[in-house]
C-alpha cells in the first residue's frame, strides 16, 4: 500500500474550487484557496502515470487517462469525498495522447498511432468505433476537439509537422509545417481562432485561422479554412513541453522551468521560473489562476496576471538638485540626501517635503538609518554628524536631535550597529562606536580594524548586552570584537568572497551575514564564563550573486540583485518572490515590506525605491496578486541517488528523509502522516550526489557524510531540535573536501589552457562507508570511479575538526560501485563491489592494514554478471554472514560466507541462491530486515522474499509496483507487526507499507490486469 508518493506531476486540472493533480497513478485533490488536501485516491490506473484529467461540461464525471489505460470516475454525493470510483481501468491497445467527451456518455480518444477510438461509457465501456488516420507512424502529441458534426484531430508527428484531420474524412485537411523538431504539444482555441504548438526546437508557434464567416465548430469551416503561422516565438531556453490558451494570453511551459505569458501580438509579457529548474510537465488555467505541475514533484498555482497588473510604479520629484542617497523611514516616508548634502524628508502620502539644510565641510557625505528605521544619521568625512528622529504620531516629520562635530578625522564608513550605536571607521582602521548622550555623543568603545587593502567597514552589528561587535570589512572579512579588547577575538577571512559583507545581524546566539558571493551564512555564538566561542555553522546558496539583506523579522525574505534585476527570494521554499528590472545594486535604493489591511484582508506589500538616471523611482507590489503559491511543495528536480530515513526521538510521528541526487542537492525533508512532505534543508554539492551515509552521534544528532561527482565529500552534522511544536533541523557544515583538490589547488596560478597538471575531473565518489574509531574519530572508506578505495580520517571534537586522507588502494580494475561495512563479532568487515560483479571482503579491524599497497582482500567472489548496484548483509551466526546483492543482470544473489573461528583467511562461500526471474531490469535496491528481503528495480517492481533462519531457503512472497521511475534504491523505515514500511526512491519517492500476512497476497494479486 502506498503511504506517500512524490514524483513527476504529469496532469493538473482546475476543477471548481479544487485543484486535481495526477501524481503517478494517484489523484491528489487540494482546495484552491487554502491549499489544503481534500483527499488522495491511490491506484486510479494500474502501474501507470496519469496524463489526462478531463471533466464533462457539467463536471459530474471525469475521464482519466494515462499510458494505455483510461477510466471514468463520478462525482460523489458524499460530503467528505469528491469522487466515487471502483477499482480497475480499461486497457486500450495503444498509448493515449488526448481524450474528450463527445456527449454525456461518449468519449473519444486519440492514440499514439493516430487512431481515434470512440467509447460508450454509460455502463461498462464499449468500443463503438475506431478511425485509423492515414499517417500512422508514432505521434509525440495530439489533440482532439469535438465539432458539432464531427471530431477534429490534430496529430503532432516526429516529422515536425502537425496534421489536422477529421474522423469522417479520409484525407488530412491541413498540414502545419514549420517546426524543426518533434511536436510536444498542441492547443487550440476555437473561440480565439488560434492553434498553439510547442516543440523540441524551443519555439512556440501561434497559427491563425482564416476561414469563412460561419460557425467555427463545424466541419464546413475546417474544410475551407486556411491556416498560417502568425508568430514564431522564442522565450524558452530548453524544449517547450506544453501550452494553454486563455482569453488574453497564450501560456507556454518548458523544460527550463519557465512559464512564458504571450499576448496575441506575440509579445512576451512575463516570464517566471517555477519548479526549481526542473521541467514543467503539466499546465491548466481557469479565469484567474494558472496551475503547473513539474518534475520536481511540485504543484504550484500562479495568479493569471502579468506583473504590471498589480503593481504601482511612480517617479517622484523631490527637492531641488540631484538626489544622491535615499532610505525608507519607519513611517514609510523617504529620507533623501541630495548632492548639496541637505536632508529632505518626503511624506509619500501627502507629497510634501521638508528640507533640513546641513552645512558640510566635505563633499563625501554618508547617510545611515537605524535598524528600527526611526533614527537617521548623516555624517561627512570631516566628522560633522547630524542625527534626526522621525516622530511616531501626528503629522510625519523628523527632528534634528544631535548636531555635533566629532573629533574623528577622515571618516570612511558609518553603520548603525543597533538602534543606539553607530560604528564609524576612519583612516588607518580606527573603529569608534558612539552613542548619544543628551544632545551630544560619546565614544563607547574603540577597536582597530586589521590591515587590509580598503580598510573600512561595509556592515556592523552589536549584540544585546553591548558586549560583542561584529563587523564586515570592505575586503570580505568578518571580525568579532569584545568590549575589553582592541583587536578582534575572532576573524573569518573572506567569508563572502572578495567583497564586503552586505549585512550582519546578531540574533538568538547566532550571527547571520549576507554577501556578494550569492550566499547567506550562519554562525553560532556560545558565551560561557566570559569567553565567546563563535563558529561558522552553515551557508546557503541563493542563486543570485548579490545578496543584500533580510527584509522580514523571521529572516525568510532575502533581497539582492541578479545582475541588473532586483530580486526578493523566499528562503522557505527557495522561490523568487519578486523580480524588478532596476539597473543593479550599484545605486542608492531601499526596500520595505509591510502588511496592510485592504478590504478586510491582510495583504503583504513590498515597496521598492531606487535611483536611476537621477530619477527617484518607486514601485509598490501587492504580493498575493503577483506571486505563485505552492500547492504541493517540490523536492529534488532530478533522480534521487541516495536516501536515508531518520526518526527523531523528539517527535515519533515524523520521519525525516536525508537524500542526495542528480540535481546536486542534499535535502532533509520531513514527512508527517501521509500527505505532508516538505524539504526543510537544502544543501549543495558541486556535482551529482551519488551516496550518503549517516551515523548517529547522540540522540537526534546525525553525522551525514555525502559524496559524488568531482570527487567531493561533504560532512554535515544535523541536529534535530524542538522549535515550538515542530522539529527543526539545524545544520552545521563541517567538511567540504575535494579528493583531487580544488581548481585552484590543482592548477595553481596558471590558466587551464597552460596547465600541465593531471586534470581528472571525472572521478566520482560512488559509495562510502563511515566507521567509528576511538576518540571522536571516524574512518571514511570511499569507493571511487577510478577503481581506487580511498580512506580518510575525520576527527570531530568541539570546535576542532580535522579531515585527512590516510591512503588509497588500487586493488580493483574497474569502477567500485558499492561499499558496505558489517560488524562481525568484534571485527569490522568491508565489502567492495565493482562493475564486473565482484565482491571483495576486507578486514578493517586494523584500519591502517589496507592502506598498504600490497593489501589483499581475504575473500573475493563474483556474484552478478556485471555491475552490482546494491548490497545488504545480515549476521546469521557466530560464523556466518548472509549477503544479498542485486545487479545489472536482473539477478538477486544471496550468499552465505562462513568464517570459522574468526579466522578470515579461511573464510569461504558455503551457500548460494540466485534468481533472475523477478525483475525485468537492473536491481538497484536490496534490503534485509529480520527474515525479510526486499528488492527494488528500475522496472518499478518491489519484491518481498522470506529468508529462513539459517539463510538456506529464500521464498518469494509477493511483488508490487511503484510509481517511481528509475528506482535507485530502497531504504527501511519501520517494521511493526506484520507490516514492513520501506521507501523507494529514484525519479521521486514513494513510501510503501508491505504487509507480510498471507491473506494479503491475494488482495494484491487481484490488482493484476
Amino acid at each position, binding site marked *: 500500500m502506498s503511504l506517500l508518493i512524490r514524483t513527476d506531476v504529469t496532469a493538473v486540472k482546475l476543477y471548481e474550487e479544487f485543484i486535481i493533480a495526477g501524481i503517478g497513478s494517484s489523484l491528489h485533490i487540494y482546495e484552491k484557496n487554502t491549499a489544503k488536501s481534500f483527499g488522495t485516491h491511490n491506484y486510479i490506473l494500474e502501474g501507470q502515470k496519469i496524463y489526462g484529467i478531463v471533466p464533462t461540461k457539467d463536471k459530474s464525471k471525469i475521464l482519466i487517462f494515462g499510458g494505455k489505460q483510461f477510466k471514468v470516475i463520478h462525482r460523489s454525493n458524499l460530503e467528505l469525498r469528491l469522487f466515487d470510483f471502483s477499482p480497475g481501468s480499461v486497457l486500450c491497445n495503444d498509448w493515449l495522447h488526448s481524450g474528450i467527451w463527445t456527449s454525456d456518455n461518449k468519449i473519444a480518444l486519440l492514440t499514439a498511432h493516430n487512431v481515434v477510438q470512440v467509447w460508450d461509457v454509460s455502463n461498462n465501456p464499449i468500443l463503438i468505433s475506431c478511425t485509423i488516420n492515414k499517417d500512422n*507512424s508514432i505521434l509525440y502529441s495530439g489533440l482532439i476537439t469535438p465539432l458539432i458534426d464531427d471530431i477534429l484531430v490534430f496529430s503532432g508527428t516526429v516529422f515536425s509537422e502537425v496534421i489536422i484531420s477529421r474522423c469522417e474524412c479520409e484525407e488530412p485537411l491541413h498540414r502545419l509545417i514549420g517546426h524543426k523538431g518533434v511536436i510536444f504539444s498542441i492547443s487550440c482555441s476555437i473561440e480565439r481562432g488560434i492553434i498553439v504548438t510547442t516543440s523540441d526546437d524551443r519555439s512556440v508557434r501561434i497559427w491563425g485561422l482564416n476561414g469563412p464567416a460561419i460557425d467555427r465548430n463545424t466541419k464546413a469551416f475546417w474544410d475551407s479554412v486556411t491556416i498560417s503561422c502568425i508568430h514564431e516565438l522564442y522565450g524558452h531556453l530548453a524544449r517547450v513541453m506544453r501550452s494553454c490558451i486563455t482569453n488574453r494570453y497564450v501560456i507556454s511551459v518548458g523544460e527550463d522551468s519557465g512559464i512564458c505569458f504571450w499576448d496575441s501580438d506575440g509579445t512576451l509579457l512575463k516570464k517566471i521560473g517555477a519548479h526549481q529548474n526542473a521541467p514543467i510537465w503539466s499546465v491548466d488555467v481557469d479565469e484567474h489562476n494558472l496551475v503547473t505541475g513539474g518534475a520536481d514533484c511540485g504543484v504550484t498555482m500562479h495568479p493569471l496576471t502579468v506583473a504590471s497588473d498589480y503593481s504601482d510604479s511612480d517617479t517622484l520629484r523631490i527637492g531641488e538638485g540631484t538626489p544622491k542617497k535615499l532610505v525608507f523611514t519607519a513611517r514609510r516616508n523617504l529620507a533623501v540626501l541630495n548632492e548639496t548634502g541637505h536632508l529632505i524628508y518626503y511624506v509619500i502620502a501627502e507629497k510634501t517635503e521638508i528640507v533640513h539644510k546641513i552645512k558640510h565641510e566635505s563633499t563625501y557625505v554618508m547617510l545611515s538609518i537605524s535598524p528600527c528605521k526611526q533614527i537617521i544619521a548623516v555624517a561627512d568625512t570631516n566628522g560633522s554628524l547630524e542625527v534626526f528622529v522621525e516622530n511616531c504620531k501626528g503629522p510625519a516629520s523628523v527632528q534634528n536631535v544631535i548636531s555635533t562635530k566629532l573629533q574623528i578625522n577622515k571618516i570612511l564608513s558609518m553603520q548603525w550597529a543597533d538602534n543606539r550605536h553607530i560604528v564609524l571607521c576612519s583612516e588607518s582602521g580606527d573603529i569608534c562606536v558612539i552613542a548619544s548622550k543628551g544632545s551630544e555623543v560619546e565614544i563607547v568603545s574603540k577597536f582597530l580594524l586589521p590591515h587590509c587593502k580598503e580598510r573600512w567597514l561595509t556592515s556592523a552589528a552589536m549584540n544585546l548586552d553591548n558586549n560583542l561587535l561584529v563587523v564586515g570589512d570592505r575586503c570580505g572579512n568578518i571580525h568579532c570584537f569584545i568590549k575589553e579588547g582592541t583587536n578582534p577575538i575572532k576573524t573569518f577571512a573572506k567569508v563572502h568572497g572578495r567583497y564586503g559583507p552586505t549585512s550582519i545581524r546578531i540574533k538568538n546566539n547566532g550571527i547571520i551575514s549576507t554577501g556578494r558571493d550569492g550566499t547567506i551564512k550562519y554562525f553560532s555564538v556560545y558565551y560561557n564564563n566570559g569567553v565567546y566561542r563563535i563558529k561558522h555553522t552553515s551557508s546557503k546558496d541563493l542563486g543570485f550573486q548579490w545578496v543584500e539583506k533580510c527584509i522580514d523579522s523571521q529572516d525568510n525574505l532575502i533581497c539582492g540583485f541578479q545582475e541588473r534585476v532586483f530580486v526578493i527570494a523566499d528562503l522557505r521554499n527557495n522561490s523568487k518572490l519578486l523580480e524588478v528590472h532596476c539597473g543593479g545594486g550599484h545605486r542608492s535604493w531601499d526596500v520595505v515590506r509591510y502588511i496592510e489591511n485592504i478590504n478586510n484582508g491582510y495583504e503583504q506589500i513590498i515597496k521598492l525605491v531606487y535611483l536611476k538616471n537621477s530619477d527617484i523611482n518607486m514601485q509598490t507590489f501587492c504580493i498575493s496578486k503577483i506571486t505563485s503559491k505552492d500547492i504541493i511543495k517540490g523536492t529534488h528536480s532530478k533522480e534521487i541517488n541516495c536516501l536515508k530515513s531518520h526518526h527523531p526521538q523528539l517527535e515519533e510521528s515524523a520521519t525525516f528523509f536525508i537524500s542526495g541526487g542528480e540535481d546536486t542537492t542534499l535535502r532533509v525533508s520531513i514527512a508527517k502522516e501521509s500527505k505532508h512532505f516538505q524539504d526543510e534543508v537544502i544543501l549543495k554539492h558541486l556535482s551529482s550526489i551519488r551516496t550518503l551515509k549517516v551515523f548517529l552521534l547522540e540522540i537526534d544528532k546525525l553525522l551525514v557524510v555525502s559524496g559524488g561527482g568531482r570527487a567531493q565529500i561533504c560532512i554535515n552534522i544535523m541536529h534535530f531540535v524542538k522549535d515550538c511544536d515542530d522539529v527543526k533541523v539545524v545544520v552545521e557544515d563541517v567538511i567540504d573536501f575535494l579528493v583531487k583538490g580544488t581548481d585552484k589547488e590543482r592548477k595553481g596560478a596558471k590558466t587551464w589552457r597552460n596547465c600541465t597538471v593531471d586534470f581528472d575531473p571525472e572521478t566520482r565518489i560512488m559509495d562510502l562507508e563511515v566507521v567509528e574509531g576511538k576518540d571522536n574519530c571516524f574512518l571514511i572508506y570511499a569507493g571511487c570511479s577510478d577503481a581506487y578505495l580511498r580512506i580518510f580520517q575525520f576527527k570531530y571534537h568541539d570546535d576542532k575538526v580535522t579531515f585527512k586522507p590516510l591512503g588509497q588502494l588500487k586493488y580493483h580494475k574497474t569502477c567500485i560501485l558499492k561499499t558496505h561495512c558489517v560488524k562481525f563479532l568484534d571485527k569490522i568487515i568491508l565489502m567492495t563491489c565493482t562493475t564486473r560483479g565482484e565482491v571483495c571482503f576486507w578486514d578493517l579491524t586494523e584500519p591502517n592494514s589496507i592502506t598498504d599497497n600490497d593489501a589483499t582482500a581475504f575473500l573475493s567472489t563474483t556474484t552478478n554478471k556485471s555491475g552490482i548496484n546494491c548490497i545488504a548483509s545480515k549476521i546469521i551466526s557466530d560464523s556466518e554472514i548472509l549477503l544479498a546483492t542485486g545487479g545489472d543482470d536482473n539477478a538477486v544473489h544471496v550468499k552465505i560466507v562462513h568464517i570459522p573461528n574468526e579466522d578470515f583467511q579461511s573464510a569461504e562461500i558455503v551457500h548460494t541462491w540466485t534468481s533472475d526471474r523477478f525483475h525485468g531490469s537492473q536491481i538497484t535496491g536490496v534490503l534485509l530486515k529480520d527474515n525479510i528481503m526486499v528488492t527494488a528495480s528500475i522496472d*518499478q*517492481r518491489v519484491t518481498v522474499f522470506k529468508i529462513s533462519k539459517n539463510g538456506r531457503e529464500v521464498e518469494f512472497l*509477493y511483488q508490487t509496483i511503484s510509481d517511481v521511475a528509475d528506482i535507485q534504491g530502497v531504504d527501511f523505515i519501520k517494521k511493526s507487526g506484520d507490516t514492513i514500511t520501506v521507501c523507494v526512491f529514484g*525519479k521521486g519517492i514513494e513510501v510503501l507499507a508491505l504487509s507480510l500476512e498471507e491473506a494479503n497476497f491475494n488482495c494484491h494479486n487481484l490488482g493484476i490486469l
Partner: protein
Amino acid sequence: MGKTSKDKRDIYYRLAKEEGWRARSAFKLLQINEEYDIFNGVLRAVDLCAAPGSWSQVLTKKLKENTTNADDVKIVAVDLQAMAALPGVKQIQGDITKLSTAHEIIKEFEGFKADLVVCDGAPDVTGLHDIDEYVQSQLLLAALNITTHVLKNGGVFVAKIFRGKDATLLYSQLKQFFELVTVSKPRSSRNSSIEAFVVCQNYNPPSGFVPTMINPLLDHQYCDFNQLTGPNRFIVPFNVCGDLSAYDSDTSYPLLLDGQTTYEYKEPIQKPIDPPYKNILEKTKNMQLNK
C-alpha cells in the same frame, strides 16, 4: 537532445574519436559480436535508424572479412535524417514504417533477403520514463515490422531497448518471431543507463504470418503468462558482452592511458547535421532571443 540527458562523455567517447568511429556506440556492436558472433557469414545487412552511422562503419569493416570479393557485401543504411556518406554503404533516407522502404531495401539486395538487421535508433528522450520507454518500444516494433519483410528465415536482429517497467511486453512480442531472444549489455554501455540490446537469433515467424505494413505492430498486453507483477513475468536471459579486459564505461581513466605518453585532443568525427536546436543556437548567438 534535451536538458534531461546526462553527459555521456566516458572513455568510449574518447576512444571513438581516436579510432575514427562516428559515435561511441560502435563499440557496443563490436562487443555484441564478440559474444554472439552475429557477423558470421553475413553478406547482406541492414542498419535501421543509422545516423550518424557508427554501426554502418562497423558493418563495412567487419563484413568484408567474410568474403574475398568486397562487392559481395551489401549494406543498406536507413534513417529519417540525413547522414554523411560512407563508402560501401547504400543510404536510404526514408521512414521505416513505409512499405516502399522495405521494397527499396530488397531492391538493393537484388531480390535476396538480409542476413542481419540491426537498429540502434532511440527517440528524442522527454525525461518522462514511461513515454520514452513506450516510444522506444514502438520504434523497435516498427523496426521489427520492416524486418519481417526483409530478413531471411534464420536471420539475426539486434536492436536497442530501454529496460523500463514494461520491457517484458516487448520480450514476449519478440519471442514470437525468433527462437532465441537474449538481452545483452555491452561493457561499453553504462551500468547506470537503462539501455540494453536484444539479440534475436534464428528468425522464425509464426506459421501463416504475412508481413504487412498497414497496421503497425503493437506491443503485447499483460496476460496469464506475463503478469504485471508476481512470479509469472516473461523475463528473457541476460548476458553481458565484451571482454573482461575491455575498458569499463563507468570507470574514470587518467588522461594518459596505459602505454600512452602524450594526449592529443581530437574533434568529434561527425558533428550533428541540422539538429532541432540549430535555430535557437543561432538566435542566442546573435542575442535575438525575446527576453
